[in-house]
Structures are given as structure tokens and as C-alpha cells.
């Protein structure tokens, strides 16, 4: 390396420092909403409509317990929620909150037949609809599938996105690792399973890309934006967008121990859900009870929930109106990529609106 290179690298480092020193505050989940129901840590949010004419069947979005719901409304130009609202859908979302030590005994039954059922009842009450649409994402999709099987009379349409139902696959690393995890020991030792522990697992699925390359990519993008005013504005936006994702990735709530234990053992290890053998509080989940219209959306390059884990849902249910959509993107790309806004959201939205009259 020559002296000129050292000087150039120093200049770049100083410029990056300047960029980061200038970055203003950023926010996530900015689409206006109001809290219409709370129970323990759970909150039910109702989004303020963006258009006058609304479809009569409301949509309740159910996100996973791992990470936070606002990935579906990360920023105005990357928002699944906003797209649905713009198309006249009446949108609600569940925020599961941050479980603490007192929540360690919550089971999947408490989440599905307790909080989720109460949220559905509240949405029905507020909207006046007899049945609502459930839009489940990731683990929230798995919960939505369980709920739709146990309470089909309340669900008009079921949409699932990157949702695992058949856990017996080696396509995703999480599926491989979970098979040998001793969930009993983890729950007995921690009670509430630390979110950071789970996050470490997610980071390990592609450590060099997510722990090094992502940041190198950011600096390269900032460097390529130029020194002028326009470049400075672009850099500010780039950093804000990056920090929103960074906040979401590391905003990992702890997990209620008993629910975690059951999810790992019954789903990942025994694969009971797809076999129609999973029990919640003495009631068997039979996927053939799902007769309402079903939309199953998945990502071709999803390394967390591979297609093999999602696709079998369509064959397992008794619905006649059922559709699969596979998009060439990854797990996160489903919510925040340009493709998500241009292609994925409009197609989900039109599937829902066509069935929400």
C-alpha cells in the first residue's frame, strides 16, 4: 500500500464519520393507528383509513413472536400495511409486546385461543363483520393456520406469508439445528428465552453476509453517492433506511418459555401440525377444518422459512379456493424490497379485496 492509498482511506473514513454525525432521528411504523384493545403485553392496533371507500371485511395481521410487527410498516415507501390501506382494506395488526418473567408460563394455546381469539372478537365487534380475514406472517402465519382450523366460523379468508407448517425439511438451517436442540433445558434454565439467543441463531445462518458484508455494502453505497448536496441527501436517506432495518433486526423480544418449548418440540421436532396431530388445550388441530379461501405466499430464496416448509399447506387444507404465490426474493425481501411494493403487496391486496366484498 502506498502513502496515497493511506491518505485516500483516511479521507473516506472522515467522510463516513461526517455522514454518521449528521444523520437525524429516524422512526419506524409511522402509518397512523390507534390502540383499540390491550391485554397484558398484547396491543391491537387499528390503522386509520387512507381512502374513503372501505371493503367491509377487515384484515387482521398476525406477526411472529420473534422480532416486531413494524417490519410490515417499516417506512412510508416500504410498507405492506400502507399498500393494503391504499386499496381500501380495513387493517388491524397485533403487537405481541415484550414478554417479561411473569409471562414465562404462556403457552401457544394462550396466544392462539386467548390473545388472538380476543383480538378477532374485538375486530368483529368494531367492524360489525361476522367474519374477518386473517393475514399471518412467519410464525404469526403458523398461529393463524392453527386459529383458522380451531375457529373456522370466524374467518372469511386466510392469507399466509413465509409461514412454516411442515417442519420436516433440511432446506433451512434453522430446521436442521432445531432438531437437536434441547428445548426443555433452555426453558428450564431461562424461563423467558432471551431474544438475543434466538437472534444469534438467525445471524449464524449467514454470518459473513450479515455481520460483515452488509456493513461493507453500506459504506460502498455511501462512498458512491458523491460529495455534493444531492449526494449528502442521498447518504442521509441511505443511512436512515439502513438504521431502520438494523433497529428491527436487533429489536428481538424475549420469548415466553412454555410457548417456545411447545413450538420447538411439537412443530420443529415432531412436526405435528402438518400431520393433524398437534393439540392445543386438549383440542386437536385438523387442517382439513380450513375450508375458507387460502392464499399462501412464499419466497424462493427464503433461508429462514424455505418453500418446502410452507408449500404443503395448500394440500393439507380442505379449501377449494386456494392459491400459492412464489416470489423470487428472500424472507425479509418479502416486506421491504422494491419487489415487495411493486409486485408482492399489490397481488396480496387484490387477492384480499376480491374476497372482502
Amino acid at each position, binding site marked *: 500500500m502506498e502513502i496515497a492509498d493511506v491518505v485516500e482511506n483516511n479521507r473516506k473514513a472522515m467522510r463516513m464519520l461526517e455522514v454518521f454525525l449528521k444523520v437525524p432521528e429516524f422512526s419506524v411504523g409511522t402509518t397512523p393507528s390507534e390502540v383499540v384493545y390491550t391485554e*397484558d403485553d398484547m396491543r391491537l392496533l387499528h390503522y386509520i383509513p387512507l381512502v374513503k371507500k372501505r371493503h367491509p371485511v377487515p384484515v387482521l395481521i398476525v406477526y411472529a413472536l420473534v422480532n416486531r410487527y413494524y417490519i410490515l410498516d417499516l417506512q412510508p415507501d416500504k410498507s405492506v400495511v400502507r399498500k393494503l390501506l391504499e386499496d381500501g382494506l380495513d387493517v388491524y395488526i397485533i403487537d405481541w409486546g415484550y414478554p417479561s418473567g411473569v409471562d414465562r*408460563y*404462556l403457552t401457544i394455546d*394462550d396466544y392462539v385461543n386467548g390473545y388472538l381469539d380476543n383480538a378477532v372478537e374485538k375486530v368483529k365487534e368494531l367492524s360489525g363483520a361476522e367474519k374477518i380475514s386473517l393475514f399471518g406472517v412467519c410464525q404469526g402465519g403458523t398461529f393463524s393456520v392453527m386459529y383458522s382450523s380451531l375457529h373456522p366460523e370466524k374467518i372469511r379468508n386466510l392469507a399466509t406469508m413465509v409461514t412454516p407448517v411442515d417442519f420436516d425439511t433440511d432446506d433451512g438451517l434453522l430446521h436442521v439445528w432445531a432438531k437437536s436442540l*434441547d428445548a426443555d*433445558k433452555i426453558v428450564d*434454565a431461562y424461563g423467558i428465552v432471551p431474544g438475543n439467543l434466538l437472534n444469534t441463531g438467525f445471524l449464524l445462518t449467514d454470518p459473513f*453476509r450479515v455481520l460483515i*458484508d452488509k456493513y461493507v455494502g453500506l459504506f460502498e453505497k455511501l462512498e458512491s453517492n458523491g460529495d455534493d448536496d444531492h449526494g449528502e441527501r442521498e447518504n442521509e436517506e441511505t443511512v436512515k433506511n439502513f438504521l431502520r432495518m438494523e433497529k428491527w433486526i436487533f429489536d428481538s423480544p424475549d420469548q415466553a418459555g412454555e410457548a417456545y418449548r411447545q413450538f420447538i418440540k411439537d412443530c420443529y421436532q415432531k412436526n405435528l401440525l402438518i400431520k393433524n396431530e398437534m393439540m392445543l388445550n386438549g383440542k386437536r388441530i385438523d387442517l382439513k377444518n380450513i375450508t375458507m379461501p387460502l392464499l399462501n405466499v412464499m419466497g424462493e430464496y427464503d433461508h429462514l422459512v424455505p418453500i418446502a416448509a410452507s408449500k404443503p399447506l395448500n394440500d393439507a387444507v380442505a379449501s377449494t379456493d386456494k392459491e400459492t404465490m412464489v416470489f423470487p426474493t428472500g424472507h425479509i425481501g418479502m416486506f421491504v424490497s422494491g419487489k415487495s411494493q411493486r409486485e408482492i403487496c399489490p397481488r396480496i391486496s387484490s387477492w384480499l379485496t376480491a374476497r372482502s366484498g
Partner: protein
Amino acid sequence: MENSDLQASHDFFELWLKAYEATYGRIVDMPVMGPSREGADRLRKNFEATINLHAAWAQSIASFQSAFAEATRQTQEKVEKQIAEEGASPSSYKDYYDLWMNTYSETFKEFLKSRFFASDLAKLTSNSMDFQKSSRELIEENLLKPANLPTRTEIDDLSKEVYLLKKQVRELSRDLKGSAKKK
């Protein structure tokens, strides 16, 4: 991962643990007697959990090092091949970085999907939990209780009571609502 020897490092740590158990481990396993027997026994168990955790940790590190060594070897091989074919090594930092990143990512993908990593992870997690549980018991019984301070176990018992009570209240409220609707 074809040239790395993950099996050898696994065999080594198995052997190390067996040797430990047959020698020092036997001393640690000796029964404890006397008025402080219970407290000393908990200390003994915690020591055992520490050794198991240490062995699992060392084994994981060794496996990671094998994967690193293999990734470095493959990167070097690619650079040498490039020099042989094109007469020059990667000309810019970016070229070299891309080659390095791709090779390391691919090698580690293979390693992380292997049965060695899954078994390392399971063992390390299991031993960490044993250590954590044993340490908690040790602190609760040997320190907190004698100092008349509340323990995590007691708080957990209370949490369970609260959980069960709340569940009961919810069920009763639901039944009441149902009855009111029927009327």
C-alpha cells in the same frame, strides 16, 4: 470442507473428556460428608457443569477454526489459480474482498449445515443450560437463602400463581359473557 478434519477435533475432545472423567473427575465425584455436605455437593456439581461447558466450548471453537482454516485454504487456492491462469492476483481491494467473501460464505454455509455443527451447537447449548441452572441453584441455596433474600425460584412460583389466576379469571369472564348472550 473436504480437507478439514472436523471428525479429528471431535474425537480429540471426546478423548480429553474421557481422560478427565477417569482421572481428576473421579476426585471431584467423591462423596461429600459433614455438616456443610449439601452446600459442598452443589459446589461439586457446579464444578462438573463448568468442566462440561468448557469442553463443549473448546470443541465448538476447534470446529470453527477448522472451518476458518478450510476457507482460508480455498481462498488461497483461488488466488493461486487466478495468478496461474491470468498472470495476476486480484488487482483491487474490491476484487479480493469479493473473492474472500464468497469463499468464506460458501465454506461456512457447508460447515453450518454439517452434522458436526448441529451436534456442537446442541451440546454447547445443553451444557450452557446445565451450567446456568446449576449456578442458579448454587447462588440461591448457598448465598440468597442464608441472606434471607428472595430467589428466582420463588419469583417463578409467584409468576405461575399469577398466570393460573389470570387464566381462571379469563375463563370465568368468558363463561359469564356466554351466559349473558344466551339470556
